[in-house]
């Protein structure tokens, strides 16, 4: 009970809090009861509808696991292809040459402004009209194409933020010992930036995993979400049960990725050997939303940085931000 927003609680405040807790609890119960009634009336709570997931492995081996496998394959492929592309564009945006910097910026900003679904629909039509990719493979190709185009541009911004988050002394020291620009980038800045970016990259993986579901819903890609659809028609309209199982799998998968990213971020911040520069999960959300020229991208990052020092900062600065957060 130590928050700056409210006083330490005396007897009256304690009584009021207990009252509020009881009222809120009653409201939650009422909501749960309403949901339960609704489900019960429509027969969605019958054991027959939930049985496939708890007894026997058929539902898992025929529908859920293959779907999950496709989701993970699409996500992994997109990440593996988008990462080097993103690195190239991210570094290109930091180039000293205008004719490299500006085109890279235009490409990155363009693809960040367009919804992934539009890119995926474009992909499907592209492969069916201009290539000989079989119609079975097309959805996967289209999903990966859409995800790569979008995420490469987001990763480009993450790479850029990672390099910019490094202390200036690193570049200066590299220049002082006579390294060329390329050498400075490849042997001094990039290795440290990659470490700093790791939490943001893992967070971006969560976004990719979530976006693969678009392929399942719109492009007939046989992913985890579409397996819910198939199951609910196969097991007798157990829509609620199928969606619950699929949603829980997504939550567990993404929550572990998010937690892993948070753990990495904390470890990097506390690490004695590192420079303390970290591009965290918040940076990803800022970058994912911003869709305009470089200035806005950096103000987005700086917006979090100046207040809470989440995007970048020395271990000391992030330490104080940590206490601020604990206080409020």
């Amino acid at each position, binding site marked *: *009970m130590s*928050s*700056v*927003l*409210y*006083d330490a*609680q005396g007897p009256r405040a304690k009584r009021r809090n207990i009252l*509020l*807790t009881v009222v*809120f*609890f009653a409201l*939650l119960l009422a909501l749960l009861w309403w949901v339960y009634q609704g*489900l019960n009336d429509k027969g*969605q709570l019958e054991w027959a509808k939930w049985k496939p997931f708890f007894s026997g492995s058929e539902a898992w081996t025929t529908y859920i696991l293959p779907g999950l496998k496709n989701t993970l394959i699409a996500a992994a492929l997109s990440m593996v292809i988008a990462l080097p592309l993103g690195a190239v564009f991210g570094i290109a945006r930091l180039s000293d040459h205008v004719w490299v910097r500006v085109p890279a910026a235009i490409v990155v900003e*363009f693809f960040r*402004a*367009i*919804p992934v*679904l*539009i890119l995926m*629909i*474009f992909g*499907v*039509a592209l492969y069916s009209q201009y290539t000989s990719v079989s119609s079975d493979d097309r959805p996967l190709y289209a999903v990966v194409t859409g995800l790569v185009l979008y995420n490469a541009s987001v990763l480009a911004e993450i790479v850029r933020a990672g390099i910019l988050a490094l202390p200036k002394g690193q570049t200066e020291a590299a220049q002082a010992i006579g390294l060329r620009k390329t050498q400075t980038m490849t042997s001094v800045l990039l290795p440290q930036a990659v470490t700093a970016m790791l939490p943001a990259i893992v967070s971006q993986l*969560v976004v990719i995993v*979530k976006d*693969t*579901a*678009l392929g*399942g*819903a*719109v492009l007939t890609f046989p992913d985890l*979400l579409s397996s*819910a*659809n198939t199951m609910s028609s196969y097991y007798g*309209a157990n*829509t*609620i049960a199928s*969606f619950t199982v*699929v*949603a829980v799998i*997504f939550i567990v*998968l*993404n929550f572990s990725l998010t937690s892993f990213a948070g753990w990495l971020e904390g470890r990097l911040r506390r690490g004695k050997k590192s420079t303390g520069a970290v591009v965290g999960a918040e940076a990803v*959300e*800022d970058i*994912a*939303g*911003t869709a*305009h020229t470089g200035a*806005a991208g950096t*103000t*987005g990052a700086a*917006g*979090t940085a100046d*207040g*809470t020092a*989440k995007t970048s900062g020395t271990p000391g600065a992030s330490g104080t931000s940590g206490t601020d*957060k604990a206080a*409020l």
Partner: protein
Amino acid sequence: MFDFLEGYDLLGAFWVTIKLTLLSAVGSLIWGTVLAALRVGPVPLMRGFGTAYVNIVRNIPLTVIILFTSLGLNQTLGISLGAHGFSHINFRLAVLGLIVYTSAFVCEAVRSGINTVPVGQAEAARAIGLNFTQVLRLVVLPQAFRSVVGPLTNVLIALTKNTTVAAAIGVAEAAALMKDMVENEAQLLLISAIFAFGFVVLTLPTGLILGWVGKKVAVKR
């Protein structure tokens, strides 16, 4: 060159996108702020609820939520949100799904804004005898909102792009029209360029204008 556009309601589709965006934006701003208030409040159960809500909703794909509103809420449980007719019902369901999803991100943005308000502000407010709701309503939130215009703009732009997911339940917005057009017309690159341009037009001014507003209203410290 643009002959193939005849018979397609391009502006109408983008108008649906805009309506989806605005309605969901208002809804998720309200619900997200309430969630943020729950998360920083003195009642442990409310804090727990807020945290659980954000962690669960943020980790489910929006597509799953939107599809569930149609297949689960509407077709299985018969909830139609007071609308009649397929397109009206699905429009409202899409708005509901977008609000449920986006408010988790609004909540986190507002909470990060609350963290940027100096501790002294809240302490001073308490020192003059304000209680928790007054501290939040009169002192902390007004300052917090000024500092989160940037992050909230990012959420709004992401929301604009996310409205395309409503195509999954048959709402006739831009992505649904594009899917229709690329299947029936030959000019793939031109069609894609038109839709890409449409979204750039929607998101670019939002970012620029709100970016300017954000700088204007920021609390100088």
